[in-house]
């Protein structure tokens, strides 16, 4: 029960930081102060909170769980590509968002889109698609919170109660502290996790009798040796994963975080140190997930390995519910916690439980982003703020935080899919497909609102199609099921891990077609290009700018 108490103490500290932020902002009650911390974050808080906002239950529990089942490929799929693409997008796009926010007062990406393309309701459609895509990301965190509390309390705190407690704490400090509270809690969380990641590797390694022995034992078995290579994944599938990090800058909470820096110079350290933070968190996460396959003396892990072996040996006629039960039993989402439980002394297990909870609770910035978007892009845009004032806008934002957290919690209780699948199949792919909007708005004078609308509608339709395929066609036990094969060519396939298009993840055609639609539709509707006055606001201080479109 001690680990659970330490985790509860951690939750109390997080809540207190939110309340402290609320007190420290006394007298400053503007919407900009609540939603953007008054655009005043310093370099360290900016780096750590921005990084923390990207680190969710997905990256800690999902990554080690994915590595437990799939091996070292997890790091190359998700971490190393992100370590290049996310900071490059912060450097190229994030700095420009910051500059436009400073000059024109934007608080959300949709405000910028509306101004850039001189549109109103199309902005509302973009808001709606962004909001729907963000909710799964919040659900991931609630699920992670429930899983963590249930594990550290040995089941005394059931999943539903753990999810509820985490939701209430996050709701509390987001409501009280706004962006300032969220950024401070994220900073605290990131420091905690960076600090203890290395300790976890050292202690678990010692407990397992050294990782060398563990790796050698994995290499000796034909069933586990492939986990140390990438032979189970095709190079095409590996390549398609590099499109996923494009989603980061298109996520509204990351775009909004870019607006909170006090100075442009704060991006410098963030851009350079981001890959190092990725290395510090993901390498231990993935490595421990792989090494867990050798931890057969931990009963909970042994039962996962037995379920996996049973699943592999099962005949294709195994009943779907039995297959689902075995998959759930073999799932590695809690494997890092089980390792800590099996090998670390109690005090360290307790602190590490709190660290995992820290990463899980990074959903706070998504919840705040949704609240900011709702109050700025809908409430204020349709006249709410001018009618009721800024104080009412902030209260509306707080109410929205409560509502959205409640909805996410209710959905989390009904979603049995693994954390990792849920994240990649819906939110990440959808936001990657929305990234051409940002690129076009900031770098292409010829882009139009109709091009933006076409890309947005395509994103919504393709996400719905992928979701429909995966809901209606059960995954095969192995191999692939053809979903659409015109002229005998396999185009869309259902595989155990999801859906592929020409062997690629759906994110690739989704993003490429979105970019193509932006170009083609903008060309076809060139008469809707914004006025030169608007264009000059965006491109006038670009080196080499001329007034021709």
């Amino acid at each position, binding site marked *: 029960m001690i680990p659970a108490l330490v985790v509860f103490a951690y939750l109390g500290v997080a809540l207190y930081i939110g309340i402290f932020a609320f007190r420290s902002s006394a007298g400053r009650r503007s919407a900009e102060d609540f939603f953007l911390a008054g655009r005043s974050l310093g370099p360290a808080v900016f780096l750590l909170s921005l990084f923390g906002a990207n680190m969710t239950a997905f990256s800690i529990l999902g990554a080690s769980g994915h590595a437990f089942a799939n091996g070292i*490929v997890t790091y190359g799929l998700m971490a190393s590509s992100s370590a290049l693409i996310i900071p490059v997008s912060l450097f190229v796009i994030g700095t420009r968002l910051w500059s436009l926010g400073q000059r024109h007062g934007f608080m959300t990406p949709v405000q910028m889109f509306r101004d850039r393309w001189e549109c109103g309701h199309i902005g509302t459609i973009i808001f709606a698609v962004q909001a729907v895509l963000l909710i799964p990301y919040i659900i991931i965190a609630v699920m992670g919170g429930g899983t963590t509390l249930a594990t550290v309390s040995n089941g005394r705190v059931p999943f539903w109660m753990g999810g509820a407690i985490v939701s209430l704490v996050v709701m509390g400090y987001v409501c009280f502290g706004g962006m300032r509270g969220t950024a401070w809690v994220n900073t605290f969380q990131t420091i905690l996790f960076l600090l203890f990641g290395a300790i976890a590797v050292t202690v678990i390694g010692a407990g397992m009798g050294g990782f060398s022995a563990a*790796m050698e034992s994995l290499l000796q078995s034909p069933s586990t040796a492939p986990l140390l290579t990438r032979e189970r994944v095709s190079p095409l599938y590996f*390549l398609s994963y*590099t499109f996923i990090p494009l989603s980061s800058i298109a996520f509204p909470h990351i775009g909004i975080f870019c607006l909170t820096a006090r100075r442009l110079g704060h991006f410098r350290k963030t851009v350079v140190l981001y890959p190092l933070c990725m290395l510090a968190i993901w390498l231990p996460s*993935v490595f421990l997930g792989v090494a867990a396959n050798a931890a057969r003396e931990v009963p909970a892990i042994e039962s996962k390995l037995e379920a996996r072996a049973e699943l592999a040996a099962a005949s294709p006629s195994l009943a779907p519910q039995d297959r689902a039960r075995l998959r759930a039993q073999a799932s590695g989402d809690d494997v890092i916690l089980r390792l800590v439980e099996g090998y670390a002394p109690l005090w360290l297990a307790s602190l590490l439980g709190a660290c995992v909870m820290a990463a899980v609770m990074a959903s706070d910035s998504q919840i705040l982003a949704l609240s900011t978007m709702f109050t700025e892009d809908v409430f204020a845009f349709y006249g709410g703020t001018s009618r009721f004032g800024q104080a009412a806008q902030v209260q509306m934002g707080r109410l929205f935080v409560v509502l959205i957290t409640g909805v996410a919690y209710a959905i989390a209780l009904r979603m049995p899919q693994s954390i990792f699948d849920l994240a990649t199949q819906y939110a990440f792919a959808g936001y990657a497909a929305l990234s051409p909007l940002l690129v076009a708005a900031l770098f292409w004078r010829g882009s139009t609102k109709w091009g933006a609308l076409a890309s947005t509608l395509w994103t919504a339709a393709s996400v719905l199609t992928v979701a429909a395929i995966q809901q209606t066609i059960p995954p095969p036990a192995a191999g692939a099921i053809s979903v659409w094969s015109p002229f005998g060519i396999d185009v869309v396939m259902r595989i155990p891990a999801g859906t592929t298009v020409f062997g690629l993840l759906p994110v690739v055609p989704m993003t490429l077609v979105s970019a193509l639609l932006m170009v083609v539709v903008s060309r076809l509707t060139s008469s809707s290009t914004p006025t030169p006055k608007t264009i000059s606001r965006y491109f006038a201080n670009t080196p080499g700018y001329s007034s021709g479109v």
Partner: protein
Amino acid sequence: MRPLVAAILVGLLYVLHQDFWFWRTARPLVFGMLPVGLFYHAVFTLASAALLWLLVTRMWPAHLERDPSSKR
């Protein structure tokens, strides 16, 4: 540094991410425990940090912070 050179360097690193040459091999185990494919991607991450340092020192978009008169 010219934008084209920066784009080529980022593109080159992106290509190096597809390390098919270590696809089917786990050995050598670097430091006795890291499969070579995992070690390669850890080094790739460090190389990304080095490239980004080069970009922010040589290509910093200082013009975005200038022009205080246009601030709100």
